[in-house]
Structures are given as C-alpha cells and as structure tokens.
C-alpha cells in the first residue's frame, strides 16, 4: 500500500493539467484502478475476522487518502479554456422594449396607494357637464367651462378637464367609507408648447370616512411623496382655492435639489408647488349621496405628467405624446 501511495504522489507531482490528474484518478481510483483492484483481488474468506477488519480499515484509509490527494491536485491543476469564445463580444440584442414614462409613474403611484389599502379606479374621458363641473360645485359661470379651457363635443359632452370627474361617480358607486385613487388621461383646450399640453395625465385620490381631518390629509400626502421620491419629504400646506374642496390647499414639498435653501429650480423659495388638495366640499359629498354631517373626506390631484417630468428630468412636455422612439426607448420597463 505504501508503494501505491508513493507512486500516486509521484504521478500527481508530474501532472500539471486537469486532464492529466483525471487520467491518474482513473488509473488509481477508476473501476479498474490500482486501488480499486486491491480490494477485488483479495480473498476475504481466507482472512479471520480481525485481519479482515484491519484490511478493510487500511483499504478505506488509503482510498480516502487517495481521493483527497486527487481532489487537492485537481484544485491546483490548470483547466484549459477553449479560446474560440470571445467574452468581450456585445450581448445578443436585448429583448426588453420600453414602457411609457407615464405608465411607469402611474404604476408606482398605484402600488404605493394599494399598500395603504386604496382601491384603484378607472375613469372615462368623455364626460357629461354634470360630472365634470356641476357635481363638483363649479358654478355655471366659472371660466373653466368656457371654450378656451375645455374641449366640448358637438353632443354637449366634454373631454374631462381633470380626473376629479370621477369623484362623485366613485362616491355614488361605492359609498362611504371609501379610499380610492383613479389615474388617467385629461384634456384642456390649450395651445401646446414646451410646458403645456392639451392631453395629459393626472391621478385623483379621495378618502372618505368618519372624522377624516386635515391632519390625515397631510400625513397621507407625506407618505405618498416620500415613497415617490424615495426619501423623507417635508411638505407644507398653504391656502388654495378650488370650488370642490373647502378648505382648499396647495401642497408644496421642500425643494429636493437645494433642500429648502433656495435654488433656480424652486425660484429661490425653497419650495416646489406640487399638488392641489383639500377637504371635500359638503356639496360634493351630497352629490355623491354621502351625508356630509356624518362623513368628511379629503381629495387631491397629482399631475402624473408633471411628476414624470420631475422624476425623470424631462424638460419638454411635448415629448410624451410625440411618438419619438429615441425618447420612449429610455424608459426601461422595470415594473415591479
């Protein structure tokens, strides 16, 4: 057995490639290998119990020792790599396409609100004057109803000017308590330029329950924005006027670029005007068949198009509907 050991060590010392070591393994430990054969060639029956046991022990020690030696040699041996595969070649064409930037922010917002238990609603674009204006306490003589602000259809309907058209519809359909968001496309009769589009996206949100307060509104908005911008966001409310909320607010967030110290982006104010919101006007609740003495609620409207511009640093609103593939291709469809 010692000779075998010596021979194996000598052989292994000579072998410097993986293939050479493998050959040695076969020679010693293979089915017809020197070590394997040792056991086969011994007549166990001729041995007494003790001798047989001793032989068995020795054989196993040798075999284990040999296997370890081969494994160690293999670990150190060189493996020849076929040189005909160029790892530096570019990958095969990607099978990833792209998803519209609005879809990206919309899905993100939906997931944030779903996490807080808000239902996601759909919305229609062609709307009656009632749901787009009257139900929202927007008076007949409000400038928004005029032709220069609204697309009117020849049948008397309008292209909705905001996602708020769904507020009363949702309240009528689902009743209170309710927490829901409804994203979608909106329209304004407006000349198109770098920062104005006649077709854009918003997400509307409402929460109606017993004792919903302004403090609740601020908290939910802070959660939303902190999730959207992946950092803690400081928000502030200031007075804003919209007929369908009372009181109404403009919600500002501390400028993400200068952290409130004042810079070009925030026009040195330290704040960015982000979204209009407020406590749902009792007339709107009543239109939604909700008793305003029993329930209160808040509503907000976030411009998805504007949010996408902020998040992805897009300077030009016209790009969204341009169909320019060079623009669209940049939005990797990394949707969770």
């Amino acid at each position, binding site marked *: 057995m010692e000779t075998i050991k010596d021979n194996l060590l000598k052989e292994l010392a000579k072998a410097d490639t993986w293939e050479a070591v493998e050959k040695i393994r076969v020679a010693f430990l293979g089915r017809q290998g020197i070590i394997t054969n040792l056991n086969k060639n011994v007549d166990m029956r001729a041995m007494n119990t003790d001798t047989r046991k001793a032989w068995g022990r020795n054989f196993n020690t040798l075999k284990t020792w040999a296997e370890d030696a081969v494994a160690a040699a293999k670990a150190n041996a060189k493996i020849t790599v076929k040189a005909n595969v160029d790892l530096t070649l570019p990958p095969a064409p990607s099978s990833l*396409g792209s998803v519209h930037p609005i879809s990206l922010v919309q899905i993100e917002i939906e997931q944030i609100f779903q996490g807080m238990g808000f239902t996601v609603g759909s919305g*229609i674009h062609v709307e009656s004057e009632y749901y787009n204006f009257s139900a929202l306490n927007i008076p007949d003589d409000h400038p928004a109803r005029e032709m220069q602000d609204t697309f009117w259809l020849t049948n008397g309907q309008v292209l909705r000017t905001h996602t708020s058209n769904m507020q009363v519809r949702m309240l009528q359909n689902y009743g209170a308590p309710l927490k829901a968001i409804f994203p979608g496309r909106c329209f304004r009769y407006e000349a198109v330029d770098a920062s104005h589009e006649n077709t854009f996206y918003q997400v509307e949100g409402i929460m109606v329950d017993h004792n919903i307060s*302004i403090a609740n509104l601020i908290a939910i908005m802070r959660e939303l924005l902190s999730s959207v911008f992946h950092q803690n966001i400081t928000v502030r409310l200031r007075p804003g006027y919209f007929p369908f909320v009372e009181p109404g607010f403009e919600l500002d967030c501390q400028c993400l670029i200068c952290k409130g110290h004042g810079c070009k982006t925030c026009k040195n104010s330290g704040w960015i005007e982000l979204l209009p919101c407020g406590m749902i006007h009792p007339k709107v609740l009543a239109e939604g068949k909700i008793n305003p003495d029993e329930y209160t609620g808040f509503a907000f409207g976030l411009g998805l198009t504007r949010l996408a511009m902020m998040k992805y640093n897009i300077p030009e609103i016209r790009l969204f*509907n341009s169909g320019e*593939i060079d623009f669209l291709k940049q939005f990797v469809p990394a949707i969770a």
Partner: protein
Amino acid sequence: MKLSLNWLKQYVDLDDLEVKQIANELTMKTAEVEEIHHLAPRMDGIVVAKVEKITSLGDSGNLASVHLGSDEERLTVCAAPNLRPGMFSIFAPSGTILTDGSKVEETVRHGHTSQGILLSPFELGISQYHDGIMDLPADLLPGTPLSRLLPGEDYIIELDNKSITHRPDLWGHYGFARELAAIFERPLKNLVLWDLNTSQHLPLYPLQIDNMELCPGYACIALDNLTPSPSPLSVQWRLYAAGMRSINLLVDLTNYVMLETGQPMHAFDGDYITSVRVAPLARDGAEFTTLDGMKRKMLASDLMIWNQQEPVGVAGVMGGLHSEVTSDTGRILLEAANFQPMTIRRTAVRLNLRTDASIRFEKDLPKSFTTLSIARFLRLCAEAGQTPVLRSRLTCAGAVTDPETVISIPSDYISRYVGENVSGPLIKKILTSLGFTCQEENEMFRVSVPPHRSRRDISIKQDIVEEVARFYGYDNIIPRLPDAAITSYTFNEEHRAEHKLRRFLSQAQGLCEVHGYSWYDDRWLTELDCNLSGPFLTLQNPTSPDKSKLRQSLIPGLLQCIRQNYDKRQEIKLYELGHCYWPENDDGSRERTFLAAVLFQAGDAEITEELFRTAKAIFEDCLRILNVPDFNYQIMDTTLNSWALAASALTVHRAEINIGSAGYLTGPILKAFKKNANIAWLEMDLTALTGTAFPEINYKPQSDFPISWLDISIMFPKAASFKMLETRLDNFRHELVMSREFISFYEGKNLDGDMRSYTFRYVIGSFQRTLTTKDIEEFRTLLLKYLHKNKLELRA
C-alpha cells in the same frame, strides 16, 4: 394684483417687518405671493420744473424753457405729446444719473442745446408708461428736489390672481391690510370717509335699474365745483406702483379708490349726462365707442349704462368716449355699482376687454362697497385740495347693503375637521381679528359674517373652518395617519390586466409603449387612403379642423409613429393601450379600452408573412396572459378600412363576440410608406375581455415511460392554406399520438414554385409501457399509409 407696501402701511403698522416676512405670511395664510419688486427711483438732482415757453421744432418736437426756481432756467428739447406751457413736471438736468443707470447728457439737437430732460414715469423708474412726461399739480414750487416729495422707496408685492379669485375683498389694498392686521395681531386703521348724510336735503339723481338681476345695486352722486388738475404726486406714485397710469385727478381718484376697496367706480362728465338707466342694449350689432377710442360691436344681451336713450357705458367693463371726464371737466356724476358677475364676464371676454373693473366685477363684490367707495372718493377729493359741491343726494337703486349671514358650528367641529385641538378662545380671537363676530352658547358657535366677505366666499361652516385653520397655521397641524380597520381589498382587474400586458409586451416582447392623441388626424387618414364613415364623437372646438373626430382605433396613430421613426431603423415594434370612443344616443358616449400593436420591418415583401405570424403570436399570448383561453379566428370577408381589407386580416371571436383583429398592410395604404416597409398589426378590445387575474390550471400528468417522436415533411400547395392541411391531418387518429407539433415550413429551391413543405413532429408514447421498435414502426406505416391515401405527398 400688485400691492404697494407703503400703501398697506397706511392702514396697519408694519414698519418693523421685513417685506420677505410679510410676503411669506401672506403666502402661508392668505394668497400666493408670486414676486416682490423693489421700487427705488434715483432722485438725486431731479427737481420740480415749470414749463414756461414752448417753441415748435416741427416734426421733431418742441424746444421748451423750464423754470427751476429762483432765476434758474434750462432749455430742453422734448417730444412728449402732453407738453404744454405752464405745466408742472419733473426735470433731470444734464449730468443726472437716472434709475436705469443711464446718464442725462447735454446734447445739441436741431441746433439747440438740450440741457436736461423732462421725465416720463418710465424714465423716473416707477412705471412701464412712457407716452408722456409727468404732469404735476400747480401747487408745487419749481426747484423743489423730488426726494422731498416722494417716499424714497416702496416694495411691490405681486400676487397670483388665481389665489384670490374667490375673495373680492382682496382686490383692494384695504382687504390685504385687514389680513395683515390679523396675521401680525395689530390694529387696523379705519378708512377715512366723507359723511354722506350731509347730502340728505338734496334732490335725488334720476336713476333707474331695468333689470335687478343683472344689476342688483347702483349708487351715484352728482358733484360740482371741481377744479381740473393733475393728481398729487403721492397719488400718481401709488397708481403707477400698482401698475395703473395717471390721467387726471378725477379719473385717478376713481382708480385709487378701486385699488383701496376693490370696488370699481366711474365718473361721467356731469355736463353730458343728465340721468342714468341700467338696462341691456336689447338690439344686436350696434356700435359703441369706448373711452379708449375703439368701436365695439355690441349684442342685445350686453348690459349698458344709458343717458336717456343713449348708451354711455358698457356696464362693468368700460365707459363711453362721449361722456368721458377730461382735463377740463368741473362737474361729474360719480357712480359705484354692483353687477351680476356672469354678465360682466361674458361681455368682457367677448370684447376681449378684460379691464381692471371687469376683473373685479366677475368676483361678485359685496354690495356695501358701493356707498363706501363713494364716501371714500369724496374724502380723497377733499384731501387733494378740491372743494366739491354736492348737486344731488347719494342716490341708490336696488340693494347697497349685504344681508347678514350667521353660521352655527358645533364647538368641537373645527377641532375634529382640522385634526388638532383648537381652543374656543383662540377660535374667537382669530374670527374677531378678521371682522367676524363670534358667540359661544350651548356647545355651538354663532358666527356672523362681516359684509366685506361675500356670500360666495363664506356661506357654510367649512368656510369658517378655513378661516380658523389658516390663522391657526397649517404648519402647526401635526400629520396623523387615519385610523383604519383591516378590510378585504378589491383589485381593479381592468388596471391589472393592462399592467400584465405592459409587462409582457415591454419586457418579454421588446415592444415600445406609445401614447397618441385621442382624436384622428384627418390628413393622415387621407394619406392612409382611409375614409372612415363613423358616426364619430366630434369636438366642437378641435385644435385644428382636421382633428375633430375622436378615435375608434389605435392603429392609425401607431402607423403614424412608424412612419415618423422608420428612417433610422430596420425594425420597429410599438403598442398603445388607450381609449376609443363612440357616440350613443344623441347626447351620450361609449368608451372602450383597446390594445393595439404594430410591427414594422424593412425588407422584401416576403417577410410580411413572418411578421404577421409574430403579430398573431403576440395576440394569442396576450389572450393567454389575460386568461381568455377560448377563441377562434375568421378571415375577414369584407373590407373594413384601408388597413383591414377583406382577406388581409383575421377577426378574433370569443363566444360569438368580436374581441379583436390582426392583419398586415397591403394595397393602396402602402403608398403612405416607403417601398421596403412591411407592416403587421393587431388590435383587441380589452373591455370585452374579462378573464381571471390568475390562471385556473388543471395539471395534466406526464407519462412515466420514455416518449419518442417522428418528424415528417409534407408537400402542400401554398394557396390551399395551412388550415386546410391541418384539418386533413386532424383526421388521422392513433392511440400513441400524444401531440402533433408544427415545426416549420420551407419553400424555394428544389420545390415546385406553388408548393410548400411543412414539417410536423408527432410525439408518440404510452402511459402504460415503453414503446418497442415494433410499435414505432407500426405507427410510421399507418401514418404514411394515411398520408398516401389522402394524397399528401412527403418531401423527397
């Protein structure tokens, strides 16, 4: 809206505060401040001057000698249209540095040395107006340094008009002073008024309102013994600071009062006008010349101010030229009225004449502002050195006071609504500082609304909450997440389906998501040789006349994207998820969500078939993803439009309902694209596809025994269609067949031109045993026998 800080300080003491702090508090509590301008004209060396002699220099203006006090005189060449001998103005001698940094040079013009210039408001640096020189009252001493007559500086606080659209009281300085007094907890000084009771013994002025709905109230008074004069410099400064201009004392004072109270006023020439009637014009098409000299086409519904049978003003918008107060008017009729906002707005918008007056009338002004403003005008008139004589009583028609509004609020309501404990005394203190009166009894607040807050602004208890909350400070409200019970969650399957498709198309299939407009572009449809018959939902006011039809397919928009992008690319794959629109009944509509995809590849026409197969695969996979398993195809047998010709597209049905179609472009439509363009498309109606969110799969066990397979290639005429071949193969049945898969087809070299070779793989096996060579051989023999019998020839 522009506010002069000096003006605000007249009513509330703000001397110790920085303008930035004032602006910030206004933004946080009242209305958004957009900008602050510093008004600080350079006045060194600039003095009051009296214009003495004027010599005309023809077209190039006049040579004027100006008197600067003592014996000093200067010559100046001046082209201002309002230059006249005897007038008082302001003079900058040569060498003076003006506000904009430029230096007044001594120049020789037309042979005369100009030793300085008379200044316009613009040159003085207090206004944009540059069409005449400053015109001052004659009670000044020539040579007086300007710095002794004007405050050295002012700050102009510019507000976002949208943020005060519901607050008519904030369209004047006094309203903002009231807010600032409440914000900084300081006393508000009264507006000093003329006592109108002194006119009680005088006769009424002839006044009549024909339509009380359009004109709920009107107040006027006739004045006499007025001396024509320019306004005092301090009045001019404030008008210019607020963005207006100075005309003459009487006109200026109407504007000045408007800038204080928010109530527009008008002064008619008292010699011209003898009575007042307020009534709509009642006939269309009449022309009316407004005091800006423009002829305006009026409508029957426009509300007018009449003198006897003659209209003398467009109510709430602008006065008429003939009754205008000029620089020599000594008698006026002074009016302050209340009009229905909508009628004023309608006329002003139509005439494209949004004046300072009309903008304010649109806000629904308090009625009590009418008499208040008249009393204020008279007081200012006296302060300017005038001694007006009243020729009539203060004459009112309709309502000139506001009904009292009282709002009751449960004591704890405000705290609950805000989400913060606001104490009763604090609530009372805030409301009182804003002019409300507030009493608490039986756990209720009784709040009465002051007349300066209009009906529209404050009418319900939530309005009172706002007043309290904004002064409590929104910043002081601690954010609190709502308490909520755990409830089951209902997903919106429509949204989920859309997002599933997005993932599949964008992540796995490499398509690019596009957004198109919701309307067709008729010019593009014409290029596509497409004549869609409708009926459509149609826009009354489209962005252009050829973009008025709301879309009923997403395909044209996607095709437009293809053409716009294909010059740089060999291959384009696009999709859109969007709404399509149909009319329903006379005044309704129906909307459906569509998914459409368009595939483009440059190359020979032969590749179209493969491109269409890709489109078809995407269609089927979308249906699988939506868990819509059962559907069938039909070749379109009638032409729908230029992209879906008969025999160039398939329609897809599910339980008799059409759920979509897929096809390729051929025929005239291809003229819209370059020659080597191959385009396939698919479109499906997601609204018709309601599958489950997650699949309902029933696992089928595999055989435990090895399976085997057999590939065969069959020759079949291309024109006969794959479908027909498949049907024939379907009739071969054998117990060992586990599946039959189509592998590929081949045409071209070595094959008859009309034939294709289709390769199929038969997977054979058994659930009971391992197949023997004999089993496989027997199967093969049977299959070949079947093919032979059915005249299906194997490829050699």
